[in-house]
């Protein structure tokens, strides 16, 4: 039953597509319908987001506008399925219609279908079409297989290259003659270095040269890195090893958090802030976890920009992306303190949870009598005193606590007033916090 033969696309928790390895997002359009008359029961894919990557064409339901029934699931069409893109005919009719792009794809080997992309949004149709063509022709998916095998060869040669092991085939080409003996090894080394020098020179002649040689250079960079890492571990510790080591550490840290396909103004257009916001929500999860559920916004600014490489975003853009979270269903939130400090925190790290812990803290028999100070709360909750004070004051403003100002400083007590019946203030029920407090207080008076 080939009713819906379009593959499903995975989405992250904040609604961004999950990309394949080496897949890069190139363009996003909003309010796009995907239609196909050739497949019976083709799902209704109306006014969603269309994402063009180097590998696929993705259609996502647009859940930012609550009105649209987002029942349709996200789908993806690998560009490798495409057999033809029809050129758009300019006619009087097209002036009145929403721009559309038609293409032919073979979903299974037997039959091919024609699909239509209808763009009801304001996006630049021509630019999209140009990119569509470009990415289809570039056939990026074919390179993946190649790169993987090449990388495999590279790493194996690196691992097996002790001093003088001879196999050090750093940039061995297929045609290289294998020579025997020590002199052979030496000559091979020499040739290798020369060829590397040459390819480096060629690649950095101008930007176009670098672009065409980019993949080679990435592999070279990886090899150098591996080599240096293994070199600094072994006995040959040169004088400036420390410097290299520290640099290595730094870049390891950066590498671990890289965003391959950063949302940019150019790719996302009008959807820039919305998509940026979602990407940030996905990205921030790991740093947030490391920081213990709360992280300074400025730290995130640095980490996020580092992960984006050259695609720097301004502090204003970051702030806007964070403030958009209120509208989406994401697990993180922006929090502003009265002191002007802004942090990002998990929603689970929310006030309710903290209040529950504070309440438990102030209702045990000792603290019912003595109350708690900000430093008590800080030590028990394991947070900074400034933070603890903030929480206590919020809890006070919610009516959970009352304050007492004395020479000992601020102390906070549980607020008993909600439990007291205004009609009969002397009535103490034989349960509840008020009752416990009365018993504790009278016991202490007897002492």
């Amino acid at each position, binding site marked *: 039953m080939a009713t819906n033969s379009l593959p499903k696309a995975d989405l992250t928790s904040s609604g961004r597509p999950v990309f394949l390895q*080496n897949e*890069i997002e190139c363009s996003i359009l909003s309010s796009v319908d995907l239609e196909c008359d050739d497949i019976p029961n083709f799902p209704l894919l109306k006014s969603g987001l269309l994402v063009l990557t*180097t590998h696929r064409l993705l259609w996502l339901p647009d859940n930012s506008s609550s009105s649209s029934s987002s029942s349709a699931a996200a789908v993806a069409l690998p560009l490798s399925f495409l057999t033809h893109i029809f050129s758009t005919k300019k006619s009087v009719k097209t002036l009145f219609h929403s721009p559309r792009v038609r293409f032919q794809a073979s979903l299974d080997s037997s039959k091919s279908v024609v699909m239509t992309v209808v763009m009801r949004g304001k996006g630049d149709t021509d630019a999209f079409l140009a990119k569509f063509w470009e990415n289809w022709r570039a056939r990026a998916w074919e390179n993946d297989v190649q790169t993987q095998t090449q990388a495999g060869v590279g790493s194996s040669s690196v691992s097996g290259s002790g*001093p*003088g092991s001879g196999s050090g085939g750093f940039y061995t080409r297929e045609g290289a003659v294998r020579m025997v003996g020590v002199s052979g090894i030496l000559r091979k*080394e020499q040739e290798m270095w020369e060829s590397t020098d040459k390819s*480096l020179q060629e690649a*950095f002649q101008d*930007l176009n040269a670098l*672009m065409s040689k*980019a993949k080679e*250079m*990435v592999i070279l*960079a990886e090899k*150098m*890195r591996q080599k*240096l890492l293994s*070199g600094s571990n072994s006995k*040959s510790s*040169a004088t400036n090893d420390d410097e290299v080591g520290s*640099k290595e550490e*730094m870049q390891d*840290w950066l590498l671990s958090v*890289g965003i391959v*396909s950063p949302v*940019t103004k*150019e790719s996302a257009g009008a959807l820039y802030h919305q998509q940026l916001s979602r990407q940030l929500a996905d990205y921030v999860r790991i740093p947030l976890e490391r920081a213990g559920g709360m992280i*300074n*916004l*400025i730290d995130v*600014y*640095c980490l996020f*920009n*580092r992960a984006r*490489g*050259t695609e*720097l975003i*301004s*502090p204003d853009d*970051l702030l806007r992306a964070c403030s958009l979270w209120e509208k989406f269903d994401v697990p993180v939130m922006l929090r502003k303190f009265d*002191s*002007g400090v802004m*942090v990002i925190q998990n929603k689970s790290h929310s006030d309710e949870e903290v209040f529950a*812990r504070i309440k438990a803290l102030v209702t045990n028999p*000792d603290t019912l009598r003595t109350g*708690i*100070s*900000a*430093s008590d709360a*800080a*030590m*028990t909750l*394991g947070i*900074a*005193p*400034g*933070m603890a004070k903030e929480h206590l004051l919020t809890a006070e403003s919610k009516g959970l606590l009352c304050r007492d100002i004395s*020479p*000992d*400083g601020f102390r906070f007590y549980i607020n008993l007033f909600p439990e007291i019946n205004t009609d009969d203030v002397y009535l103490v029920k034989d349960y509840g916090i008020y009752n416990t407090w009365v018993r504790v207080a009278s016991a202490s008076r007897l002492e």
Partner: protein
Amino acid sequence: MRRRPGIGGLQTAAAARDQYRLVGENVAKIRTDMMKEQLATFRTQLEEFARKHKNDIRKNPAFRSQFHEMCAKVGVDPLASNKGFWAELLGIGDFYYELGVQIVEICLATRPHNGGLINLQELCILLRQRKSDREAVSEDDCLRAISKLKVLGSGFEVISVGKKKLVRSVPTELNKDHNEILELAQAQGFVTVEEVERRFSWTSGRAIDALDTLLDEGLAMIDDGHRDGKRRYWFPCVSSNSTPVADT
């Protein structure tokens, strides 16, 4: 190699092995040297490209990701705008934003050692090290870059302790130094600056800053009247007369 019997044979074999090892070590050394040289060229070239062709690189997403990968692998900072005339004059352009990212990064990297408090001078020195041969970054540039971060809240600020200027990257709300001081104070009810520095081996700025914040928060009180002339910071809230709170 064919094995020959006898002591002589063993000696020859050992000598041959030594020879091979020597050659091998030589080759390995040359190899690392060459490697470092090529890596250096790679780095300078990449840096130059990052600076010159920034906009072209950004136009092509597929190439951009490869470029990032190269930069990350050989340890090149892809943020490398020149300051330029307009940045100097009006503060526009990416220069100060990029500097801001680099400053925060240094603060993050040194935080385990200094608790998020770094001398402005030290910061500049670290920045210059990373910027290699290009124009020097002045303290004024740093201050301007930091002021651009103001939009993101007051969690990052320049404070003065004595004559020194310090950059604080940990806001009070997230500062765990205060907890350590409170714990220390539990023993006697008070601490002195010297004691804090000695016990935690902090720099003097870090201790003074933390104690000042605790004063501002109303958690500490100053006592200058003691005989040894050292200022004592009393913490009434943790002193022995209040009951220690059991962990919930």
